[in-house]
């Protein structure tokens, strides 16, 4: 509640700052009968004053939040009775944790110890003081900022330039955050993968034909050597993705053509969102559907046709995944087809082409880059899909091109590797990072190709 109040007060202050800044700028403007030339418009001064008012408390908040836990814990430990302070570090941390839990009303191990209870009271007091002090300092900072900003206003102050620069910095830092996160993820995966490649050679990982990542928990266990050949996993990934694309590309493309070229405007406005719902269904639900409905069906049919089939099959997973990614193809393709200028169609009709000839010979070629882009996007999605495969295609790493056999994919294996109870630096766990790295490079390549295709063959219509 008091947090909300604080935010409200800060907002009110900034509104006041805006008004004050504006007034002062206007007043300056009127001095000398309006002949002093302000560098910027009054609203720029107002915004700058507002930023002056908002920025200091935000800075205070950030710094304060970083340090206050340490300070409070330090104070808490200092005030604990001497016998606790003698405890080893790890034990002391447990005690502190207990106190924290107790203070938050959670269950704690030594809730009935009177010293702990006393310390908890003390801790809560500290917290309260901290919160109060933080609010007060933030408000003071806001007021001080306001005052400084207000004082700074003068005809020579280049308020517009400053404001633009501040906004610019803010936007840059947002963009940088996203990029840095990506780089951070990539680096952490890269380092773990390199640790993996210290135990398992890159070549045997990339070209090995056998995947059985069972390593020993203890050294004396038998069968302790795992096989980390990733080829069956990638083969499975490609098999399932290929099946999925065989479903999604024709259906998606044809429905896109129907929606963009033949459907009435009303039908399109209803059908397109409906189609897009397919992409919004949770993959677990698709997984159910694949495992419980489609997989048995596939098995029955294949057995009726005299083909040996496992109860889990690449076909079932691929078909369902294909349905899931139809909207990726159809929705984007529909957009690019609609974006082909009317002038192209008119030109074709005026040559005596029919509607279907126009679509086939002019519109599809013109929209092809976008269509290819949408297909590549769908491929990335198919490669990354996990849940459907776990449920419908099984976990066994078979190296096969038979769509009726059970296969597994890279992402599924990453999941199973990480949910085990292995220690974190065992090759089994680290293998997940290596797989992740290769997968990442794969989808990155696909995306780069997609971008390249789209850019290179993008048609200048005029």
């Amino acid at each position, binding site marked *: 509640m008091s947090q909300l109040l604080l935010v409200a007060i800060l907002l009110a202050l900034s509104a006041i700052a805006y008004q004050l800044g504006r007034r002062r700028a206007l007043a300056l403007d009127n001095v000398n009968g309006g002949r002093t030339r302000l560098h910027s418009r009054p609203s720029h001064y107002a915004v700058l004053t507002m930023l002056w008012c908002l920025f200091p408390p935000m800075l205070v908040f950030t710094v304060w939040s970083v340090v206050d836990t340490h300070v409070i814990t330090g104070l808490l430990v200092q005030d604990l009775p001497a016998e606790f302070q003698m405890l080893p570090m790890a034990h002391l941390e447990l005690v502190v944790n207990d106190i924290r839990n107790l203070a938050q009303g959670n269950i704690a191990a030594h809730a009935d110890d009177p010293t702990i209870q006393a310390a908890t009271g003390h801790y809560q007091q500290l917290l309260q003081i901290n919160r109060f002090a933080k609010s007060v300092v933030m408000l003071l900072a806001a007021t001080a900022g306001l005052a400084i900003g207000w004082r700074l206003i003068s005809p020579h102050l280049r308020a517009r330039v400053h404001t633009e620069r501040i906004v610019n910095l803010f936007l840059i830092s947002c963009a940088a955050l996203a990029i840095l996160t990506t780089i951070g993820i990539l680096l952490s995966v890269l380092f773990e993968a390199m640790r993996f490649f210290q135990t398992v050679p890159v070549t045997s990982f990339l070209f090995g034909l056998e995947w059985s990542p069972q390593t020993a928990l203890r050294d004396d266990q038998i069968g302790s050597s795992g096989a980390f050949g990733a080829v069956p996993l990638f083969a499975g990934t490609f098999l399932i993705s290929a099946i999925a694309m065989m479903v999604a590309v024709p259906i998606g493309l044809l429905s896109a053509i129907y929606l963009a070229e033949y459907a009435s405007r009303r039908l399109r406005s209803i059908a397109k969102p409906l189609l897009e719902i397919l992409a919004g269904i949770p993959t677990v639900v698709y997984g159910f559907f694949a495992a419980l409905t489609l997989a048995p069906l596939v098995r029955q049919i294949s057995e009726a046709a005299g083909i040996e089939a496992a109860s889990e099959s690449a076909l079932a997973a691929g078909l369902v995944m294909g349905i899931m990614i139809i909207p990726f193809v159809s929705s984007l393709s529909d957009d690019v087809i609609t974006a082909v200028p009317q002038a*192209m169609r008119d*030109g074709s009709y005026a040559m005596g*082409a029919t509607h279907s000839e126009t679509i086939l010979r002019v519109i599809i070629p013109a929209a092809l880059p976008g269509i290819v882009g949408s297909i590549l996007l769908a491929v990335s999605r198919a490669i990354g899909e996990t849940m459907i495969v776990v449920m419908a295609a099984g976990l066994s790493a078979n190296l096969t091109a038979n769509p009726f056999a059970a296969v597994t994919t890279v992402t599924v294996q990453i999941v199973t590797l990480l949910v085990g109870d292995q220690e974190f630096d065992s090759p089994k766990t680290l293998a997940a990072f290596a797989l992740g790295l290769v997968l990442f490079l794969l989808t990155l390549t696909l995306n780069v190709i997609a971008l390249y295709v789209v850019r290179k063959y993008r048609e200048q219509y005029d």
Partner: protein
Amino acid sequence: MNTLSEDLLISRRIGLSISTEDLDAAEVAETNRDTVGDYTVFDPKITARDVNVFYGTKQAICGVNLDLGNYEVLAMIGPSGCGKSTFLRCLNRMNDTIAECRVSGKIHLDGENIYHQNIDEVLLRARVGMVFQKPNPFPKSIFENVAYGPRLHGMTRDIGTLWDIVESSLRKAALWDEVKDILEQPGTSLSGGQQQRLCIARAISINPEVILMDEPCSALDPISTAKIEQLIDELREHYSIAIVTHSMQQAARVSQRTAYFHLGDLIEVGATNQIFSDPLHPLTEAYISGRFG
């Protein structure tokens, strides 16, 4: 004193033009809008009778009668929004591609009603070609742009013949010398004027009988415009041409007959030099002397 329309009647009877110095909007609205001049020709290629066009409930063309003669260039002029494009698009049934557009009346091509239910508008458009205001080459190579029509209509299965068609079309469009070495490059890589000539080459590649041009030079520089005007003059030997233009100089240079449209009505039609030197209708005179439009 006579009212304006009485003035008009008199002036039409005695074949004189009256001063329109003080035409204001209200008077324009009251002015008689029956077509002045002879809209028929001795040797018609297309005859349009009592053509009305509606976009939804809005009427864009009101009872227009107009002929296009064989091997002549007919210019259509008039202020923006008066329905020139709309009328032009009736002649090859391009208006069929606009859902809310409705056309009534009779339009005959060589004595055959093109809106008759037995007429295939797709075949009709092969006989009545069209060039648009903005050059719209397909996103294909220059060669493929011109070969599009012949391929579509199965004019030849022989690649040699196809080359001949492409070359002769490009020659007729006065573009061959500029593109003969870059036929594989995309049509969109040409300059605006070249693109428009490419579109003309594309239109004549299937040997239409009539070519409709909707402001073909409005996006072009003076040199390209001059080239295309010369081209139109040459094309008249083989085709009947109807051209919409905003440039009265252009209409005067390329056409034999001129039709002046105003707010959906055909106001005046006649020989081009008569229209420009001696307009009969006050609205025409006001327009060509630049008083509105």
